[in-house]
């Protein structure tokens, strides 16, 4: 991987992956919930937009 021209920090990169993993759990749960709700409410575009923001 080619790194950027600013010092991006080794620790920042490693921890970024870990934090992203942690954040992904509620994120995907919310997204799935959003999809289910969208089907239930039949207002799919609006809900999807909110979840994806």
């Amino acid at each position, binding site marked *: *991987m080619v*790194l*950027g*021209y*600013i*010092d*991006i*920090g*080794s*620790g*920042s*990169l*490693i*921890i*970024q*992956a*870990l*934090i*992203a*993993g*942690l*954040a*992904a759990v509620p*994120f*995907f749960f919310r997204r799935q919930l959003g999809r289910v709700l969208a089907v239930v409410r039949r207002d799919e575009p609006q809900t999807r937009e909110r979840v994806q*923001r």
Partner: protein
Amino acid sequence: MTAPSVTGADAPKRAGAGLETDPASFRDPSGVVYRRDGTLFRQISEAYAPNWELLLSSGLHADLVGRGWLLPHEEAAIDQRLDESAWRVIRPLELDFISYPYEWTFGQLRDAALLTLSVQSRAMAAGMMLKDASAYNIQFHEGRPVLIDALSFERADEDAPWIAYRQFCQHFLAPLALMALRDVRCGLMLRDFIDGIPLDMAAGLLPATSRLRFGLATHLHLHSRAQRTSTRPAAADRAAQVKLSRGRLEALLDSLRSAVEGLRWEPTGTEWAEYGETTSYSQAAAESKARLVRQMLDRTDGDWVWDLGANTGYFSRLAADMGRRVVAVDGDAGAAERHYRYLRETDGTSVLPLVIDLANPSPALGWAHRERRSLVERANADVLVALALVHHLAIGNNVTLPLVSRFFAQLGRAAIVEFVPKSDPRVARMLATRADVFPNYSIDGFREAFSADWELVDEQPIEDSERTLFLFRRR
């Protein structure tokens, strides 16, 4: 007076006849900012060419400019280049006034952070990413934050982490958290730390309860711990191997956005935040003052008004309503924040509120003092408006009247200045608790002091008060 450039730092170095490179643009090898015969240009290097072409061909550039999130540019002829390394030359839209993150209110810094995340999200959708997340790449243009650096994007490899993550946390999340949860004046720390607040410092200063917020516990506290262990040699190898799926990267950005949105600050309890509603003079005096200010503004020319000691912006709006563009300076973070919120709610586009203490204005900062310019170096005021301010400088800060006059003359070429005598209740209250060591603080002393730098154009008493308004033209 030269107009400031997009990336800041004027007082430029001469690179040839009529050619000046911008001392704030040296860090980014993608392209140098320079001025040729007064016009601002940026040359794009050969190495950046694939990224630039992708930015345009993917539609990302048009998308961002269309949303008002990215400052537009025009293509320029290649013979306008600075040197042989140029692959292409552009002419960015030039902003008349540059402000810095340490001058922004809490809400301004927060909006700038959210814009940076929004831009990154759009970039990801186009297969690119922001390669830096510097708060200095954001400026306020017509009331809204806008990214000024079109060379901030690069192709995102599949599974690539966000390389500007650390910078985002240092430039935005850490100062916002400190301002919201510790003290709003922590925003001024950005003056000392030009690449953002070090995360270990932020983690140490934040209240323990900040660990209860997922966003701060991870992006600041955990992040700061990880930086401590990252000096081991193995860490660099591991870092180069880091992969982040697209979905996880989206989750990371979503989490950063929630962390920023979760930070709020209400401007109460600061010194002047309620001053706007409790003015110390009568309704008749207020009406007379507004009428006189309007009449005096009418007798001045030029676009730019600097409202010094603007408070929540009553007179800034008065000037804006007359078609002027206004830089509204106040030392109180609460008053400036209220001003900014009012402008956001009313779609005010002509006024830029900033938090600046005039007794200690922003200095020149960064490499060789040339990256960030001092307030005086950025002065572009056609008219200064200084209402109910001089007594704060003279009596509150012991700045003598000749020094006030000289400083004002460095900022603008015309001035509308209010003089409040010692007999006024407000000044009397300031003097009640201290020795009166200001024998020259009188209307005659004021006139005398200002006559050194300014020609008196008009002088009008404000009705139903002991105050006087002066209109000056710089000598």
